């Protein structure tokens, strides 16, 4: 029997969106002299531990949320001093003159942050305002009331064995009920996915389109460190028909964040985002920042890149999707934390108004309305055609998007459309194999030594949180047609094709303990046969300011 508890507002997910919503709710209550109970749950062991982002942050939303964030000690300290956008070919790079760059590529006034640290700090602000913050608890199940409206979530059971039985340490989850539940799970939230289906939130919008971002944190020699410098690259090592690019952000304390994003609409099943990232680091233009340094951390996370036209309906009876759970990221600006914060604030304002008016479990129509008249809508509208242009290939896409932004100022009378990522793979037999270089253990690494640095961990004796709808598909379809692409797109080595000693009888081995919760498998599996669900609360990576 599960215990339950009632709140005015429940927030599922402690990233920038969820925490901004929590903070805004408490601020409004304080302003109005009323009280509102707000509970926030987070599947990571602590706030910020599942956050992975570049990240360059536009402080616009933070200025609105906590105007005195500097005085309050926000870990937002490294102002961007220079933008470098570089087109790479195999041996050299060509820097794009700053004057040619669309505004969305310019970061003057923005900050390079470790977003996990920002989230941790926002969590402290939320707790200080009286939000009940519970890291270590995953929203495992959506709860509906008798009218079909969302009435909250249940946290996952603990101590269930691999076979699904109640083990000696079994503890049932808890039901958290609320007048409104805000889902802020980040990109491809597993509850968000269910809500989209349950309430037909994707009717009339384009499919979402995604990228996988891989990132490492390095400590580099002082002479290679240029605090405040933001480098974005495109081109090599990806072929020009594959969307993606890299970044190098020079943080404080001799730290450099380096990462690579690959669009998940790639077509060659032999492609490995992880290996692309590793060889990316060997380019002379990139290597020069890292040589003599030491890799400190690694992680990966999927991002939603579809923009406005891929955004689902934001509200449903009893709640709303916020942040990247609803695809608020601005792919053209290569940032989303400001959008996440703003969306959380707008949803909070709508929820607060509704609770104050003694409403509950209806649609928070005020949220999408407020979004539509916000600067955030204007910003996302301006860059809405970025990702679709990029489908035309790197060179044509850059040219068209450049014209769109520089000449038409994002006001082109057309809106281009997105399509789903999972059905883009071509047959393995029709695609060139890619010969990736072996890791050198200094600049480039293998998957497992990388996963090691994510601090990820999962109890072994629990049901596998990577569910196969049909257990024959991995071999009969994925291996037969696509040479089991999950072996390569998974950045954590979760999926392996194991064979017996004679090399026959292939089977899919799922090393669920390695999972870094990036959700790529849930997105890219060609027949959507893999369903990512939450493991026990508190598990998964423990990122330290990623």
């Amino acid at each position, binding site marked *: 029997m599960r*215990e339950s*508890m009632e709140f005015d507002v429940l927030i599922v997910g402690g990233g920038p969106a969820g925490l901004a919503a929590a903070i805004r709710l408490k601020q409004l209550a304080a302003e109005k002299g009323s009280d509102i109970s707000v509970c926030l749950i987070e599947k990571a*062991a*602590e706030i910020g*531990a599942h956050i992975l982002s570049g990240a360059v942050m536009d402080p616009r939303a933070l200025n609105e949320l906590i105007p005195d964030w500097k005085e309050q000690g926000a870990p937002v300290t490294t102002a961007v001093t220079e933008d470098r956008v570089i087109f790479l070919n195999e041996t050299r790079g060509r820097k794009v003159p700053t004057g040619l760059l669309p505004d969305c590529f310019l970061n003057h006034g923005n900050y390079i942050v*470790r977003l*996990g*640290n920002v989230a*941790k700090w926002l969590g402290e602000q939320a707790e200080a305002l009286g939000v*009940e913050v*519970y890291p*270590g*608890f995953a929203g495992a199940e959506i709860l509906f009331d008798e009218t079909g409206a969302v009435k909250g979530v249940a*946290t996952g059971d*603990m*101590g269930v064995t691999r076979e699904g039985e109640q083990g*000696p*340490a079994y*503890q*049932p*989850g*808890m039901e958290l009920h609320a007048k409104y539940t805000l889902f802020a799970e980040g990109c491809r939230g597993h509850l968000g996915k269910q809500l989209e289906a349950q309430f037909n939130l994707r009717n009339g919008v384009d499919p979402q389109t995604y990228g996988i971002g891989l990132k490492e944190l390095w*400590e580099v020699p002082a002479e290679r460190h240029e605090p405040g410098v933001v480098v974005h690259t495109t081109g090599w090592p990806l072929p020009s028909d594959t969307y993606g690019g890299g970044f190098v952000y020079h943080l404080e304390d001799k730290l450099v964040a380096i990462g690579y994003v690959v669009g998940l609409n790639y077509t060659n099943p032999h492609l490995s985002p992880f290996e692309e990232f590793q060889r990316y680091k060997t380019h002379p233009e990139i290597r020069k920042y890292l040589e003599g340094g030491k890799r*400190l951390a690694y992680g990966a996370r999927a991002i939603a890149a579809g923009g406005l036209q891929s955004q689902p309906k934001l509200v449903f009876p009893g709640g709303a999707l916020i942040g990247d759970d609803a695809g608020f990221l601005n792919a053209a600006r290569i940032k989303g934390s400001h959008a996440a914060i703003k969306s959380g604030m707008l949803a909070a304002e709508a929820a607060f108004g509704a609770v104050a008016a003694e409403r509950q479990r209806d649609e928070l129509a005020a949220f999408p309305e407020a979004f539509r008249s916000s600067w955030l809508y204007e910003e996302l509208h301006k860059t809405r055609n970025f990702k679709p242009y990029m489908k035309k290939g790197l060179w044509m896409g850059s040219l068209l998007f450049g014209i769109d932004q520089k000449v038409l100022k994002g006001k082109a009378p057309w809106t281009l459309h997105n399509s789903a990522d999972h059905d883009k793979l071509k047959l393995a037999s029709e695609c060139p194999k890619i010969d990736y270089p072996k890791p050198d253990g200094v600049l480039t690494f293998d998957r497992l030594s990388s996963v*090691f*640095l994510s*601090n*990820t*961990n999962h109890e072994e004796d629990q049901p596998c949180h990577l569910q196969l709808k049909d257990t024959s598909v991995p071999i009969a379809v994925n291996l037969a047609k696509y040479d089991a692409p999950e072996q390569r797109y998974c950045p954590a080595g979760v999926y392996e094709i194991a064979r017996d000693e004679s090399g026959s009888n292939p089977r899919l081995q799922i090393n669920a303990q390695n999972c870094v919760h990036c959700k790529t498998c849930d997105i890219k599996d060609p027949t959507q046969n893999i369903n990512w669900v939450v493991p*026990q609360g508190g598990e998964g990576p*423990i990122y*330290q*300011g990623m």
Partner: protein
Amino acid sequence: MKILVPVKRVVDYNVKVRVKADGTGVDIANVKMSMNPFDEIAVEEAVRLREAGIATEVVAVSCGVTACQETLRAAMAIGADRGILVETDVELQPLAVAKLLKALCDKEQPTVVIGGKQAIDDDSNQTGQMLAALMGWPQATFASKVTLGDGVATVMREIDGGLETLEIKLPAVVTTDLRLNEPRYATLPNIMKAKKKPLDTVKPADLGVDIAPRLATLKVAEPPKRSAGVRVADVAQLVDKLKNEAKVI
């Protein structure tokens, strides 16, 4: 019967620590901290003894920075009844902690102190033994089974190559080994309840204890990396090397 359980806030078990480039220590800024796993076992054991009706109260104690409150809340979420924080920013070494705990034992008069055998940060494995010495109490370290009787405790303890069973007079200090129990998951309702349990804060000076460190850390370095050795051609050569060069068989 009152049980006192010392709990330490340490770098989380799953986090790989990194030695700072300047050699002054390991980098624990922004690192996830948790309760020392052996202490978690100690709390679990104490709570089980209370649930079995043998103990009446479980008091968790933590010595260190303000954030050790979280560790005490975690202990209370497992089931400790209340917490005492001995708050200080000074680096605490095992002897100092033992002295602080002695002062609290003098005040609280527990029948048993159950603590972890060692903390996973400094790996000292000393505090329980030191506390027992200072109190003049018996000690049963590395416990894998604890039975409390009338005035005595029977403790099975892990020794090299097996187990031994000691009968110790109470009051006493017991330190836990891994196999003693499997700590429960702290449930959300219990974490909520733990927020409301009493937590007192005292300062080392209030207890009249000198906590000055006796050891100065001069340097912290990465362990030497293993390097690849030699390739042997066949089994005969391998056996020869193991017998005559490495002398391990």
